[in-house]
């Protein structure tokens, strides 16, 4: 069930109404209902893969108890390995098996071997990388004695399967999220209204920005040879906004929906395209994943406390794994590698934490220096997105070569220019709104600065209208569902 579908528009109010009407029946009943609603939400896509969520939940629920129950360090570690083996095993089979087999075969083909193994003809279960990482973090935190294992099966299963963030995050930590299932939820008017506001902005970004950009992006990336350099450049910029609108839009809807049910999810995007360098970009893009890798990979490897060279290794390892997390394709690995390469100079010059504040804080217009830094960072990000979006490395090279051609200076030409113009206009509106809200936790947060309620409502009416008038008639699934 997609967040931008009519099915969800019916599902959400029904679940909301039942959820709050059984509020007095006790926490277990309410959590049990959340589990049922979440499983229905997931089964809408494919019920057959519900078993994987249940398996992941059962394994980590039991293993965490075993880890907690024993004081013997080696035994605790063994249980942790079992959990990691099961979770990564699920990922390896469903997501990476064919990739590994393909690469092994490619290597053996150098020695004349033909097809050695058969491929798995399975669909990639939606959200598999998200919920496996979430359950793993729970077990690791219990192992590290950061949290105690959950004794309540209902709250734990609800934590793993909570439908707003089940299929594309934010990847929540048990220490932040699990306790919220163990306390009575009280309906909070302000929180619920804030949730609706965030949902509205998420829908705008997904339906108006991402889906409209997708039309052109699909066209250009399918046949890069057919377009001029300037047109391909626009295609790459459109993809940058497509993936941002798609994923941050999804996150906004997820966080907003969670607020309606009395939960607070972590911020997943903090206006990444206003970053002044790559390090800042990575602190602002897909925060729940980058912080996951920081806490569960980078720091256990020694982080930056192990000397410069080992720290460099750790940075590369984290970025490559991060790339590989996105999909079983060399394009993602190279994308991660190149991000690490761009991060490297900042780290070596000790400038990777130079920009931890909000750009042009307290001002409406940024300085020329800030503008140049933001533009350069955005240009680098766009360049790397080309690799991310391409099917193969060769395709990415063709696309990039196509941009840096003499035709880069020509007038962009592609069909349906009319709608592209409206899409540009909508991107500008999004950027303006987000710029004005960049000190808030999401794009429409700046509206709260308006003291008059009627003015705030007028803003919502206008955004609703823009969604109705400019949303794409060719809706795409959420890009991150495939990761």
């Amino acid at each position, binding site marked *: 069930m997609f967040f931008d579908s009519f099915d969800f528009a019916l599902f959400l109010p029904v679940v909301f109404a039942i959820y709050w009407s059984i509020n007095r029946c006790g926490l277990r009943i309410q959590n049990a209902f959340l589990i049922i609603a979440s499983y229905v939400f997931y089964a809408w896509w494919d019920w057959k893969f519900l078993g994987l969520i249940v398996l992941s939940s059962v394994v980590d629920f039991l293993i965490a108890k075993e880890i907690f129950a024993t004081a013997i360090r080696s035994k605790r570690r063994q249980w942790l390995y079992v959990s990691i083996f099961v979770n990564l095993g699920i990922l390896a089979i469903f997501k990476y098996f064919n990739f590994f087999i393909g690469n092994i075969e490619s290597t053996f083909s150098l020695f004349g071997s033909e097809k050695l193994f058969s491929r798995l003809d399975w669909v990639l279960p939606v959200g598999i990388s998200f919920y496996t990482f979430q359950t793993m973090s729970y077990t690791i935190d219990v192992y590290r004695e950061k949290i105690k294992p959950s004794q309540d099966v209902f709250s734990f299963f609800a934590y793993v399967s909570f439908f707003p963030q089940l299929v594309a995050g934010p990847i929540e930590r048990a220490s932040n999220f699990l306790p919220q299932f163990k306390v009575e939820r009280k309906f909070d*008017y302000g929180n619920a209204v804030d949730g609706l506001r965030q949902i509205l902005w998420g829908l705008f970004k997904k339906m108006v920005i991402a889906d409209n950009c997708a039309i052109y992006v699909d066209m250009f990336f399918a046949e890069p040879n057919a377009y001029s350099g300037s047109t391909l450049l626009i295609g790459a910029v459109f993809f940058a906004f497509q993936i941002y609108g798609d994923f941050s839009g999804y996150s906004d809807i997820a966080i907003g929906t969670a607020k309606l049910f009395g939960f607070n999810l972590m911020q997943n995007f903090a206006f990444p395209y206003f970053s002044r360098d790559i390090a800042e970009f990575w602190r602002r893009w897909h925060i729940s994943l980058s912080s996951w890798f920081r806490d569960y990979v980078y720091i256990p490897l020694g982080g930056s406390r192990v000397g410069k060279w080992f720290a460099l290794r750790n940075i590369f390892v984290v970025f490559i794994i991060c790339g590989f997390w996105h999909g079983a394709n060399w394009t993602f690995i190279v994308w991660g590698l190149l991000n690490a390469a761009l991060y490297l100079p900042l780290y070596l010059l000790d400038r990777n934490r130079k920009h931890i504040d909000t750009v042009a804080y307290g001002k409406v217009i940024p300085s020329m220096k800030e503008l140049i830094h933001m533009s350069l960072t955005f240009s680098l990000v766009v360049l790397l997105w080309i690799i991310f979006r391409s099917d193969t490395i060769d395709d990415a090279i063709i696309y990039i070569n196509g941009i840096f051609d003499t035709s880069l200076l020509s007038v962009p030409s592609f069909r349906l220019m009319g709608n592209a*113009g409206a899409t540009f206009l909508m991107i500008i509106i999004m950027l303006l709104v987000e710029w004005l809200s960049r000190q808030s936790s999401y794009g429409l947060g700046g509206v709260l600065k308006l003291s008059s309620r009627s003015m705030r409502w007028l803003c919502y009416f206008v955004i609703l*209208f823009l969604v*109705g008038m*400019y949303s794409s*008639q060719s809706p795409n699934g959420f890009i991150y569902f495939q990761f």
Partner: protein
Amino acid sequence: MIKFLKDISIFSFLASLFYVALVVAWGELMPPFLRPNLSDRTILDDNILLTLNDLKDAEDIDVLFLGSSHTYRTFDPRIWKRYGYNTFNLGSSAQTHIHTGLLLNQYLEQLNPKLIVYEVYPDIFGNDGVEANSVFLSYDICLDQMTEVVFESQSVKSMNEMIFARYRNIFLLNDTYEINLDISKQEYKGNGFVERKSNVFSQVEPFLRTDILQSQIDAFQNNIRKLENANIPFVLVRAPVTQIEVNQFPDMNAYNVLMQDYSEFIDLSQVNELQDSIHFYDFHHLNQKGVEIFNPIFIDTLLQLNLLKDTYK
């Protein structure tokens, strides 16, 4: 919670009013490229208005043609007239089976045809009906029946167009509308037929197939039942398309067998006398040269199959 529900209700009500007002304002004031989800007569093909005008006087016809753009660009009533048949072409752009059903409800009794040629282009079974909704709403075709169709289509574009169509209808703004036609490429020739000039196509575009929609299958079956109940002879036809398109179709035979299950079915998608580079203006529509060749062949086929009488007089 009560305050929340109360505020949500007030907000929804005011938002609806605001939305309707802005749709109307956008439709009246904005140029087409700034209102992608609102088509109206200024964007669409006004030839349908001429069809509707001719339709007022049409009754007791010999043959009625129904279907998508292949219909009104393929079956030429002037050629049929030469053979002594009084026909009417009620095809429209991307007309889906749902929309064909609306036309049957509205006009079948008036037209009282002796034979119906129901063109069944395979992709229409996967068509969401949004394009046909635009035509029907903008030109007030079966407007009373459109509300249900629009809600079932779940398309925000169709919703916008319904709001705008109702507004123009209520304030009688369409009564003063002046038809605007560009006859450089095509021209209306009476009884629903639009003649496309005999230029040929130069660019082959990738053809996107869509999944079949259950709603279209249901509507198609309803239409078949409707015609059977009305005791009107009918024939399902696949209109000619280029060899390029035929080659792209995944399983032509399975589709034909399926259609034969429903009724008499004639597959004319491949006619030997028609050549891609001469008789089509794009890769699935005939140009006038093709139309001139195709219609006599089709009449002859119907006569041979005894689906068409020598004369209905």
